[in-house]
């Protein structure tokens, strides 16, 4: 069962979270100042909490925290121009504004992406694409790639275990670690290549390349709210780009 299947985000039409995430990314890049970027981040966090995938906002903090610290040091401490005192530190006003803008942009994009990942159902997405009569190939490519990541991770874990049980030292000196790269990487890559071959055979015999329009098994409902959210977000993204370019 998909992780987000019991949440409001999981019940949305599969295109809606995808479009919202893309729009958040576009608006984040276009956000010209700290206030706009902070507002976008706040709206994104609010949306993911309201749609039941709030854990994504928390999970995003893990990679973000060191990045934020780095941005703060780079732009705030080392930045030039007017200085302001914050908690006893002398910081660049312009650098601080830039650091906040960048941090909020990254926060919004990471939160939206993790929320999308948490609510994404491959089967519903493929059904939604088939329901529109669009090509199965590209939807399969996207979905299978996303699905391949956990399998690749599991295979890497199994190879690590196997090589460790055969006496390979994976810890200790840097030399040990460098020596371990080959015995771990090559089986992983060769295994993946062999799997691609066999999976290709299987997909062909299971008619994945057929030109016939695929039957959606359980086409997801595309409600008025979904459509409105997608149009609204798209309009906001276009407006943000226009504002950034011509504003």
């Amino acid at each position, binding site marked *: *069962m998909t992780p987000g299947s019991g949440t409001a985000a999981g019940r949305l039409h599969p295109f809606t979270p995808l479009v919202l995430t893309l729009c958040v990314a576009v608006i984040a890049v276009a956000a010209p100042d700290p206030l706009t970027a902070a507002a976008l981040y706040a709206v994104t966090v609010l949306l993911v909490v309201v749609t039941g995938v709030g854990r994504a906002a928390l999970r995003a903090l893990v990679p973000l925290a060191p990045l934020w610290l780095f941005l703060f040091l780079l732009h705030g401490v080392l930045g030039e121009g007017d200085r302001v005192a914050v908690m006893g530190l002398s910081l660049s006003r312009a650098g601080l504004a830039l650091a906040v803008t960048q941090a909020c942009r990254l926060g919004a994009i990471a939160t939206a992406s993790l929320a999308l990942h948490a609510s994404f159902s491959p089967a519903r997405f493929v059904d939604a694409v088939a329901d529109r009569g669009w090509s199965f190939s590209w939807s399969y490519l996207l979905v299978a790639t996303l699905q391949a990541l956990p399998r690749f991770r599991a295979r890497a874990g199994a190879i690590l275990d196997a090589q460790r049980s055969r006496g390979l030292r994976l810890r200790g000196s840097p030399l040990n670690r460098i020596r371990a790269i080959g015995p771990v990487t090559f089986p992983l890559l060769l295994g993946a290549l062999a*799997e691609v071959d*066999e999976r290709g055979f299987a997909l062909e015999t299971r008619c994945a*390349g057929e030109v016939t329009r695929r*039957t959606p098994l359980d086409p997801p409902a595309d409600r008025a709210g979904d459509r409105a959210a997608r149009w609204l977000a798209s309009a906001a993204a276009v407006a943000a780009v226009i504002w950034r370019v011509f504003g």
Partner: protein
Amino acid sequence: MSALLFDGVGFTYPGSAAAALHDCSLRAEAGQVTWLTGALGAGTSTALLSAAGLAPRHTGGDRTGLLLTLGLDPALPSSGAALGGRVALVLPSPATQLSGIAETVAQEVAFAPANLGWPRARIQARVAFAMEALQVTHLARRDPGTLSGGEMQRTVIAAMLALEPELWLLDEPTSALDTAGRALVHALMRREAARGAAVVVASEDTDGLHSVAETLIVFTNGRPALRGPPREVLRGEQVWSAGAASTAIAGLARAAGHAAPRPLTVDEGVALWAR
């Protein structure tokens, strides 16, 4: 017309000097189970890949001779669409045959019929039938990636059964199955043959095949070296000299010095040794 016809077929994989198939001739008829066996590298798997058209279309390499699958040359790009859904190929590693996008076993089984654009009601009926036949109905809502090897293998076979194929090409279809699972798949082969499908199996596992197959073909060096009714072939000595193996009981009798014809089953072994 034979469901599968090889007439002097040769096949060489790219980069290989030796031919995997060499002057290979065989037939498989509708309504019958044809069993191919041989030592590793004897060419049985390549024969199935060639019959499905994957060799050389996917593998590359050179094929010679006449090969007709349901009356079509499967190597031609145009045959791919014409044979789609009519030929079921099952490979030995079930994990690599999953679609990679299904979240449940039911979706996995429905993958190919959906690709063929069948009406939803027909798909649902075939999926229910296939899952029942392979006894995976209780797994319908499970993630295919979390199944055991045997469950996965039964799911993959169910996914092919859902297509109602005219020709089955099964490469080691019971490699991950226990005794009960193997009996289930053997019974399925008989039912499919009775329905009118042609069933071609490539397997080193010869235990029990004499009650499943009409014809046994033993491959050596990329070509059939021996063929006949399974009981006749397996009881003799030639199967061993061809590099293949007979049943475990026949092997035991051979090791004990019994001359052919040898017993094939436990009951026959008991009858022989009780004398």
